[in-house]
């Protein structure tokens, strides 16, 4: 226990230094409201420190390795990447805008926006804070708050850049917005804090693709935070892929707030990193909204994947569907903690949460914990979780048609994931996820179950 406390204290001191040395370089120095947010977040973080396994939300997830390393927020500029270098990371073929960040810094030469209607804003957050801070004031921190969690506080204190998307009322974009975060290098251990702010006004429609990847080996800790604010009847499709290097650690916190009759459809795919956690904090600010939240994760040897859902039904007549599926290989580990809370006034809530896991190895491990907390009396709520293996009858059927056992496993795993990918509105995203999933399954030696 003393060792844990010591590690915690040392890590907190290192981050105190990091915060102090970084503060002067962050955007928005002259913005009082932002300076106040950062000061409050810094104080909250330094007061609370990092979570330990005594915290319920971190019970299955050890931070020890992450906390042992000294990290920096900036690295000497990379040899410039060119368009051909980042092309393999493309997930869309008709993007209206593509923003590429390398080690946390927006690369204008690799980014583009085209044919964007007036009043639509798609740009780097740093640039927007410098040019048009008034447009951002009031939105930044509105969905998330300043320090809702310790890592969110750290992001608020340290965010340096990210994407700013503002879609005015009634505007429907003709193609997706693609955002690529590339990390690269192992000479220093990086800590990056991208901050994404997405606002859809009443009746606006947009599709956003967020992609976290590595260019070569990358020892990077990404502490990303994405805020989404949907106005009345706004509709957003939000596809996320985390496929970082095996050395990388990744935390994504999403804070999504929905207006009346709005619709949010999210698909989060987590394939890479040694340690990866995604937190969805969804809330309905007005009645009759709908949220479809899907997730797919793969964890193999030396990987821990962690999904946390905190879905708040505080308004009546809202619907949420949470479908999460995991494939575990080798000694992979997964944690799924899905909580739906239905407040007393949230009558006619309709919520269904499922988590299905496919274990392809005896050594893999899943901790799944669905929680329904219901305080209203006129609701339809259900949850279901399974942890299973490939069906022997299905394997036999495929093999009896001449298909080799490893191909049969690959086909069944893809079939398992297809339910979620079938609803994906960006064909390139789906195709890339399927391709990466296939290569992961073929590369994994420990597919022994029989």
């Amino acid at each position, binding site marked *: 226990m003393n060792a844990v406390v010591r590690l915690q204290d040392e890590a907190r001191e290192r981050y105190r230094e990091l915060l102090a040395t970084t503060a002067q370089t962050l955007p928005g120095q002259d913005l009082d409201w932002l300076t106040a947010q950062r000061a409050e977040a810094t104080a909250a973080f330094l007061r609370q420190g990092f979570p330990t396994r005594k915290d319920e939300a971190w019970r299955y997830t050890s931070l020890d390795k992450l906390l042992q390393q000294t990290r920096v927020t900036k690295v000497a500029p990379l040899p410039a990447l060119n368009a051909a270098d980042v092309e393999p990371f493309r997930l869309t073929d008709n993007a209206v805008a593509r923003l590429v960040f390398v080690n946390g810094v927006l690369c204008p030469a690799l980014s583009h926006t085209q044919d964007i209607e007036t009043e639509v804003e798609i740009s780097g957050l740093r640039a927007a804070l410098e040019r048009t801070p008034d447009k951002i004031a009031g939105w930044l921190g509105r969905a998330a708050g300043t320090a809702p969690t310790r890592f969110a506080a750290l992001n608020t204190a340290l965010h340096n850049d990210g994407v700013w998307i503002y879609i005015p009322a009634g505007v429907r974009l003709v193609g997706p917005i693609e955002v690529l975060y590339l990390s690269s290098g192992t000479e220093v251990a990086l800590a990056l804090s991208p901050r994404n702010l997405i606002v859809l006004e009443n009746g606006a429609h947009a599709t956003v693709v967020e992609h976290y990847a590595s260019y070569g080996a990358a020892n990077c800790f990404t502490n990303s935070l994405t805020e989404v604010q949907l106005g009345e009847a706004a509709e957003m499709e939000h596809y996320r892929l985390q496929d970082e290097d095996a050395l990388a650690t990744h935390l994504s916190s999403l804070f999504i707030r929905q207006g009346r009759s709005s619709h949010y459809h999210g698909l989060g795919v987590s394939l890479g990193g040694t340690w990866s956690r995604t937190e969805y904090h969804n809330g309905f600010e007005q009645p009759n909204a709908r949220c479809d939240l899907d997730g797919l994760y793969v964890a193999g040897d030396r990987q821990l994947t962690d999904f946390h859902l905190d879905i708040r039904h505080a308004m009546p007549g809202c619907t949420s569907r949470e479908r999460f599926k995991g494939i575990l290989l080798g000694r992979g580990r997964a944690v799924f903690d899905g909580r739906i809370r239905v407040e007393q006034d949230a009558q006619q809530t309709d919520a269904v949460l499922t988590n299905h896991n496919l274990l392809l190895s005896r050594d893999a491990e899943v901790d799944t914990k669905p929680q329904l907390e219901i305080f209203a009396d006129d609701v339809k709520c259900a949850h279901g979780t399974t942890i299973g293996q490939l069906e022997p009858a299905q394997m*036999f059927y495929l093999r*009896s*048609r001449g298909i080799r056992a490893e191909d049969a496993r690959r086909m*069944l795993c893809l*079939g398992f994931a297809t*339910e979620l990918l079938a609803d994906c509105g960006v064909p390139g995203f789906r195709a890339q996820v399927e391709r990466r999933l296939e290569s992961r399954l073929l590369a994994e030696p420990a597919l022994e179950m029989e």
Partner: protein
Amino acid sequence: MLSIKDLKVSVDGKPILQGVNLQIRPGEVHAIMGPNGSGKSTLAHVLTGREGYQVTGGEVRYEGEDLLGLEVEERAHKGLFLALQYPVELPGVNNMVFLREALNAIRTARGEPPLDAVQFIKLVRDKANAVNIDPELLKRSVNAGFSGGEKKRNEILQMALLEPKLAILDETDSGLDIDALRIVADGVNTLRAPHRAMIVVTHYQRLLDYIEPDYVHVLVGGRILRSGDKSLALELEEKGYGWITEEAAA
């Protein structure tokens, strides 16, 4: 082509097949009939290599080779095919993808080049027409949400596409109404060929009105108690299985 000698098979230590003998030559259609629990499906499954069956005696040679020593997929590569009594649902696995992977796996194993997407689509459409199957079934997940008749027709489509040398049809008639039965039987009949043998496993004589066998074998208590031509099936239809059991006991 297939030679089964004194085959003994147990399931969970319980003897099911107790010395089966059977010779099959190319072009022949053999019907295996018998009451429930006589070992018909066990025979079909053990020939295709399903897990859970312990061979405790005898041997099976297929084109001169020890069949029981081969992996499931190797048997398929060498031309063995089992149409299942209960075709398995594969949610999320597209039927077209499934058929292409199967055909190309078999072609590759035979040293033939795999078909590309265009070649394959043309072939599978031709085959679907030949066995009178709605091409819409190709777009769906394998057997998922298919009716009983659609599942059985999908089995026949696979057989038409994979062109086995030895096809085993396990209770293909079960659960089919008369119209579906006719479509399935017509499909099977179009696949009869001088180089192809078939084993038709069935409880009822009904199927044999549509698929005429060259030989009929009666399997009771894990043994073939009687063999004959198709008139034996008619006799069974009339008298039931009891008389064979009684004759054997006498």
